[in-house]
């Protein structure tokens, strides 16, 4: 019974609409990238330093993506106006 429910969860796609909100799917992915990258890079894993480094990397990726998106938006606006 439970195994059938679990299997069913992974055999039918979720309903995701196209819109600004679907950009939020980016956040868990960036978090996964930051965590895995820092897990490979830090010489020793200590909770405090690991969390700090991961949050820093997560924030820098998001800021860089936001700046890139803004620049592309501005470029698009300049070209079309």
């Amino acid at each position, binding site marked *: 019974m439970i195994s059938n429910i679990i299997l069913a*969860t*992974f*055999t*039918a*796609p*979720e*309903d*995701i*609409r*196209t819109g600004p909100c*679907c950009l939020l*799917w980016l956040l*868990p*992915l960036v978090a*996964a*990238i930051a*965590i*895995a*990258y820092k*897990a*490979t890079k830090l010489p020793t*894993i200590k909770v405090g330093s*690991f969390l700090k480094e991961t949050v820093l990397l997560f924030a820098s990726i998001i800021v860089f993506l936001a700046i890139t998106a803004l620049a592309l938006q501005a470029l698009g606006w300049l070209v079309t106006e």
Partner: protein
Amino acid sequence: MARQSRESHALFLLIVGLCAWVVPGGGYFLLKENKRATIVLITVVLAFLVGIYVGSIGIIDPVGAKLWYVAQIMASPAVAALGYLAAGGGYPVYGKPNEIGQIYTSVAGLLNLLCIVNSVYLAHLHRTESSGD
């Protein structure tokens, strides 16, 4: 003697690489880097599961999406079994769920590839440090 040692070193690196591929973080477990291994295992498996939750196992398509499949299979050889299950086209998926699912599962695979390379490198460092080379 030196040749035998080199051969056993290469074999050890190969075993670490294979373990890291079969189970994400497995290479680190072999090197007794348990914290690192646990973090990698949870992160890669969760990212992969989110991907197939969003897009269903239909996003693993060894025929129609070869490049994505190459990245996805880096997560674990178990992905090949999922690809075999989904190969008949019984799990069609289109649009955003397909896109997001493929991105999540492929990034999970590529993150595991990074961890495979890193665990093999760490294994090499551990061996050369312990042998004093």
